[in-house]
């Protein structure tokens, strides 16, 4: 089980990084989404894996629970990463609408001197 989770994290990270290195905005956003999945699951896994041990206190005496702290951190991380994705989407959309291209790199010929003019 641990191996499956670790390999899933690794696969998502690799996919995320590869897409992050593409040259257009949309793949970069997708890559970032993949990378946030990977990071969230990674953080979650730092609490170690546990089956049927939800951190909901039982009414029926002693029970063991999984580590609740990483879950709490990941919960807010999921919501924040949505906010981040949204801002990024907005910026890339704005860039596309303003410049009519969704390339992420500045044209090498487009130097500071040109901008100053």
């Amino acid at each position, binding site marked *: *089980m*641990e*191996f*499956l*989770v*670790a*390999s*899933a*994290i*690794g*696969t*998502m*990270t*690799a*996919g995320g*990084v*590869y*897409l992050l290195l*593409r*040259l257009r905005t949309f793949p970069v*956003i*997708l890559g970032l989404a*993949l990378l946030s*999945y990977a990071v969230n699951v*990674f953080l*979650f896994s*730092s*609490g170690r*894996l*546990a*089956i049927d*041990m*939800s*951190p*909901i*206190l039982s009414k029926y005496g002693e029970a063991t629970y*999984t*580590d*609740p*702290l990483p879950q*709490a951190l990941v*919960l*807010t991380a*999921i*919501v*924040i990463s*949505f*906010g981040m*994705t949204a801002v990024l*989407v*907005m*910026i890339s*959309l704005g860039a*596309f*609408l*303003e410049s009519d291209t969704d390339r992420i*790199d*500045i044209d*090498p010929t*487009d130097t500071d001197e040109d901008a100053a003019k």
Partner: protein
Amino acid sequence: MNTSGNVLFLIALLPFVGALVPGLMIRAGRNACASFTAAPTAIALILLLTYAPAVLNGEVIQAEVMWLPQLGLSVSFFLDGLGLLFACMILGVGLLITLYARFYLSGDDPVGQFYTYLLLFQGAMLGIVISDNILLLLVFWELTSLSSFLLIGYWKHLPEGRQGARMALTVTGAGGLAMIGGMLILGNIAGSYNLTDILQAGDAIRASEWYLPALILILLGAFTKSAQFPFHFWLPHAMAAPTPVSAYLHSATMVKAGVFLMARMWPVLSGTDAWFYIVATTGLITMVLGALIALFKDDLKALLAFSTVSHLGLLTMLLGFGTEAAAVAAVFHIINHLTFKAALFMTAGIIDHETHTRDIKRLGGLRHLMPITFVIGTVAALSMAGIPLFNGFLSKEMMLEEASHTSWAASHYAVPVMATIGALLSVAYSLRFIKHVFLGPVRDDYPAKPHDPPFGLWAAPALLVILVVLIGVMPFLADGIVAAAASAVTGADLDPHLKIWHGVTPALYMSVIAVVGGAVLLMLHAPLDKAWIKAPRPEAKAIFDRLIAACVAMTRSVTEVTHNGAISRYLAIFTVSSVALGAIAFAGGGLSEPTRDMLPVPAIIAVGWVMLVVATISVVTMHHHRFRALVLIGIIGLSISAGFVYMSAPDLALTQISVETVTIMLLLLALHFLPKETPKESPLSLKIRDGIIAVTAGAGVGGLAFAFMQRDVSTISSYHIANSYEGGGGTNVVNVILVDFRGYDTYGEIIVLGIAGMLIYALMQSLLEGPAARRLRNANYANDRSKDRHPLMMVVVTRVLMPIALMVGIYIFLRGHNQPGGGFVAGLVVAIALLMQYMASGFAWTQDRQRIEYHTLIGFGVIIAGVTGAGAWVFDAPFLTSSYTYVHLPPIEEFELATAMLFDLGVFLTVLGAVMLMLYSLSRIARYAGTTVNVDPMDFDPSSRAEDNSEAR
């Protein structure tokens, strides 16, 4: 012996407070500005003088307020003899300069600015000399660099002014940085950053192995500030400043800050060989070199600048000698140099002002035309030359006396001979100043017709010259302050008696040689000048410029490789370095044996894993088809939610699944306006490179996670589980952590989310006012548009679903404290319920029915959460302390009321508002993209059709 001196705070503060006034009343005219500059200066000076009797009696005035005790930084001031001497100089000369500048500057200059800068500088300089904390001293030290930058570059239209200001800032700023290092070492050795403590720890500091680095670093700061060789070059270039600035900063105060610091640190740092050889030698070289260059400078101010360099060298050398008598001479010469050099600078300013030139070769014969200026200038210059009955003579004699019995590396002649040469050159350039400017025939080719300036302009130098003569004739007048300051420098109780006649001593012979030799040298000036001009000399500014250019070229070459405008390159560099750092850390740590057994893998989980991995790989291979990639991303997110369910994280599963929904909606909305395909433009080599980077990063992260999950570590979670119910009143530990244990984090996070929402709204707003709006109007999206945009079935279903979805949201919110759920999830669920309406019936229709603005929701959410947290203050508890109780109302089950729930309500509202605002902003674009506004909820409304039919009938 120590007296409390809270007035010191006022004295230190006055210039800074006063600095606000002239800058604000920039149009009020020169008189008003000058008066409001003089007022705080004069008040500070009077307050300072009330302490003078006590300080002259050997008392030390102290005042302290802790500022950042964790750093050892306190606002503490102290006033001893040395501080008093410098503070009087700064404020006294400040007053004179204020008066002088009033008449010197023209009405066209922004005078208010000038006085503001001047007061800022004055405050900073005053801070240096009365700081008791070396960190505070460093702050003021940097402030003097900055304010002097502003003053030197005051005439912004002059390129020399700007370049000189930049050079001064670079040199003194770099020295200041070095000094920070030295001061921190010093504080570390002494165990305190308070000067009074450090001054007691002299033996420990000199014995420390860190003594030499600290000494060199501090001296770098002092030498750059006081323009010592080889850093002397900035001072002449700073002469592009208006003359009042040169007179104030570059003769009287700022350049003496380095000397002050060496004097201040004298009990701690001096007395070693390293101190003697570094400080005395540097001073000696600077003294001779400065005097030599001064002799051949034709610009009056450049002559005076190099003469200042030379005299600063003299002071440095005296402090370097490390004897008490030399310290007395240094302190006395500080006073004397101040009086004659400031007067000389003002004289040069007057000449420049009246004749419109400072070139000595174009001057001469001014004694008939400007008799008052002639008297002032001559007296001051004679004092600079060291002619008896003027104060310069006295301290120069003392210097020569000290030099005459100082041996340098076993040579008894090196120092005395060099000192005599320095004095000789000094006589030569001083006499040259008199002879070539004032004496000689009257010329008829001055650029302007010279005459004496108004009283206001010559009053200040005249006052200084009176001091020159007074001290020169009656040196005992200065006994008190020199004794107090020299005692403060050396730490010993000194009682020097200043006299004119010391009998026939070696110093007298040296003095006579210097005066006669100087006069002879001046007679030979014309041929020597020709030779000097022909001789090759290193030009400091050219060297400096080349050095700066080389630095710029180097940094630019690094920047252009790593920061060339290609984000993919930065990201690649970032990823590779992160992976490399991780690998290094991993290699250094070593790995213990696994302590956990692996959990079994049920078949259903294996299927989910395959789905996730295949989807991820497919996203990568198919990302050119953006829509397909988006669908695949959805699959990945859902698989992860399922995984969370299986692995005991119901809250995460709920959050993930609802965030997934809104994320996909968001991306779909965005994709509508973006190209639907990504062009294939990466060459194969780039793909391979990125593939290698990606696989390495993935393997690293995966391996790390795998290693991590197999080993146990101790965590703080048991505390949370144990106290969740008793302390927080809830059984859902994750929710209790969010709203209670770590409520502060959550509070910050909802604010961030709210800001993100506002940011998106603002971006959209500005976008729709720019060229993007035009582009949108002209774009043709008709082909993308569905023929059935608001289908009947969907409208009906979403309408029916709305109350159910809201109910679910409220339910999830209410149970959150004890069962999976809570504000975050509830906010997302309700947001989805609302979004369905937008999707089904369109933007305009839904917008018409919106009652509360989403901004308002965010605001209320943050306020409710904040007020709930602050409510704890009423009960004397820290921010966000929660409280709960169980209530039993007869018809329903016993239920819980907790303040944490109110906090969760804030979270709920903020999440709802932020998510809605983000998606709403995006969908607003559609309005600009030519979408027709629909008034009806659906494309085909059977009920309205029925009415139409009935009317028709």
